[in-house]
């Protein structure tokens, strides 16, 4: 197996390696350097440590599947009762774009009950073939039969890549399918690129911080990725259908479920920040109830909604549904104004596709200014009330 070997004779000062490791895996035990289980095999110590101090030893290359046997990109049609989630169109658009590189087909998997006519809608977005599993057992999302259907289709068509929307359903289904196929899965990819050898380049924010990771699944197929809603661009709906529908049968054994859905309760309609065209986002710098009122006032004037960062949810000032970021919602409004937000990647990954980003922060070095289009350096307590005043004046003048 691949491992790291320490060469003590080439290490003058072990503390250098202890300090270098970002995961605290280099440990001094009775004066001897040891690597503990915190090691993530990032091999930073090999590349950046003292010359020859740590050696990466790989005794045998990993076995690889025959990639020629796996072709095309499969997109999961995310839906409840046949109402297709728009992330599906975005993923089909991305799949089409990537299929230009490999000249391989784009497939869609549509599982449910009484959905055959709804499958025609998918043909308006440019897939080559929609595979429909239409069974009463699939009326509701239940993890075991849906995984069974996925497994069945993967064995039948052998797709090289699979894209799944990171919805509440997709986030449960994708890992289950990946574990069954014993393959890799990358969550919440923000960039996807296809290589000519069908390897899928998957890029996502990593380690919960200001780092992007470029991830590949070089030896396994299928390669699986989830993508959040509003990250990719949806293609235009075409008036005419293209591609074909193939209805699939499945062994009833694979539809056995230990989850029984008793009922579906409608949630009270709330103003989802995902649907807002204008968002005013509040950050940690806001503490007092008056601050919240100031932000809400600005949002009302601009016909928008208030959103926030994780610390404000943890402080109990906002409901979790208002949180933007990797652990919250992804938003793509026409306008977002961030107030008192420093801008960790955890947050910006959830909003950096917004059309216009305006950031107000008193720290000129705040990371949010790397993401923003308009960077206003100054005290929010001076700027925001003045801005509210100007907007009210403009509105009054307009109505006069």
């Amino acid at each position, binding site marked *: *197996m691949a491992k790291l070997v320490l060469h003590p004779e080439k290490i003058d000062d072990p503390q250098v390696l202890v300090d270098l490791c*970002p*995961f*605290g895996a280099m440990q001094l035990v009775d004066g001897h350097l040891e*690597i*503990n*289980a*915190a090691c*993530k*095999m*990032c091999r*930073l110590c090999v*590349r*950046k440590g003292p010359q020859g101090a740590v050696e990466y030893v790989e005794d045998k290359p*990993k076995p690889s599947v025959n990639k020629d046997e796996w072709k095309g990109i499969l997109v999961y049609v995310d839906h*409840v009762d046949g109402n297709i*989630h728009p992330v599906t169109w975005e993923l089909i658009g991305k799949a089409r774009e990537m299929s230009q590189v490999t000249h391989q087909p784009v497939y869609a998997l549509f599982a449910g009950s009484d959905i055959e006519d709804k499958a025609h809608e998918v043909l308006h977005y440019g897939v080559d073939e929609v595979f429909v599993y239409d069974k009463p057992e699939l009326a*509701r*999302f239940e*993890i075991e039969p849906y995984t069974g259907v996925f497994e069945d289709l993967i064995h039948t068509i052998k797709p090289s890549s699979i894209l799944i929307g990171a*919805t509440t359903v997709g986030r*449960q289904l994708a*890992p289950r399918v*990946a*574990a069954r196929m*014993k393959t*890799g899965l990358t*969550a919440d990819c923000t960039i996807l690129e296809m290589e000519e050898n069908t390897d899928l380049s998957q890029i996502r924010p990593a*380690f*919960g*911080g*200001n*780092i992007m*990771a*470029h*991830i*590949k*699944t*070089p030896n396994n197929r299928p390669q699986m990725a989830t993508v959040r809603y509003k990250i990719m661009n949806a293609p235009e709906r075409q008036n005419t259908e293209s591609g074909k529908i193939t209805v699939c049968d499945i062994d009833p054994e694979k539809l056995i479920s*230990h*989850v*029984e*859905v008793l009922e*579906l*309760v*409608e*949630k009270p309609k709330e103003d989802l920040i995902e649907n807002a065209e*204008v968002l005013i986002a509040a950050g940690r710098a806001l503490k007092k109830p008056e601050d919240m009122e100031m932000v809400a006032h600005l949002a009302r004037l601009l016909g928008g909604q208030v959103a926030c960062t994780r610390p404000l949810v943890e402080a109990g000032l906002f409901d*979790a549904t208002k949180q933007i970021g990797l652990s919250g919602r992804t938003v793509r409004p026409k306008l977002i104004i961030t107030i008192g937000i420093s801008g960790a990647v955890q947050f910006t990954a959830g909003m950096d596709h917004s059309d216009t980003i305006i950031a107000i922060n008193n720290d*000129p070095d705040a990371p949010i200014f790397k993401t923003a*289009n*308009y960077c*206003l*350096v*100054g005290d929010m307590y001076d*700027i925001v009330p*003045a*801005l509210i005043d*100007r*907007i009210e004046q403009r509105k009054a003048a307009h109505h006069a």
Partner: protein
Amino acid sequence: MKILVCIKQVPESNKVEVDPVTGVIKRDGAASKMNPYDLYALETAFRIREQLGGSVHVISMGPPQAKEVIREAYAMGADSGTLVSDRAFGGADVLATSYTLSQGIKAAGDFDLILCGKQTTDGDTAQVGSEIAECLHIPSVANVVELREVTDKTITVAMDLPDEVEIARVTLPCLLAVDKDIFMPRLPSYVRKCASANREIRILSLKDMDDQNPDHYGLNGSPTQVQRIFPPDVSHDQETWNEPADILADRLSEKLAELRFI
């Protein structure tokens, strides 16, 4: 009811940066607290134990210092704990992590119910719970926002969907990933902390697993490979306005009118 809760030690802060010149990750402090989402899973376990009796066991995977979060779980009320720890597990991606934990769970005992938090704050993938369930061949439900009824054969839960809440009855054994706010987590108790100070933490390494093939663990058992890590892109069309507040307000209201937001 024998309940198992999966917990993880995560860094105190998310402040991680890459030095753009050397490519070295700069991390503020090492792992040091329990993943906050796991507190809700623990609380859910305690509530079920209060109602039906039984025991709450915790399992974690990580370096030896991850014992600290097991001690924390003891102070909150967990009965026993296992740490899965071996250098051979290093560099594990989602599949290898889930497989390792599922092997650890099999070695730790038979459980009626496995609970996980929604996600971790350092990985943010929310994938490990569902993959563990698959490795153990048991049903799973994620996004659980409410427990409706718990019996020794089934558990009825409310699962969050985008526009609806689905009420589902699941046959035990099963795995549930619970959402934040399902219950308000209790604080660790000093009395319990003292009482459990000498309680054993079982350590499991590769040699304790049913499957001892090292190719199934760590970097070798991970289909995904990190090619490189890099700082995020700096944006595009950018203007910095560094002026007195009054002028900033003038300019911004003009810009908003120009963009037709006013």
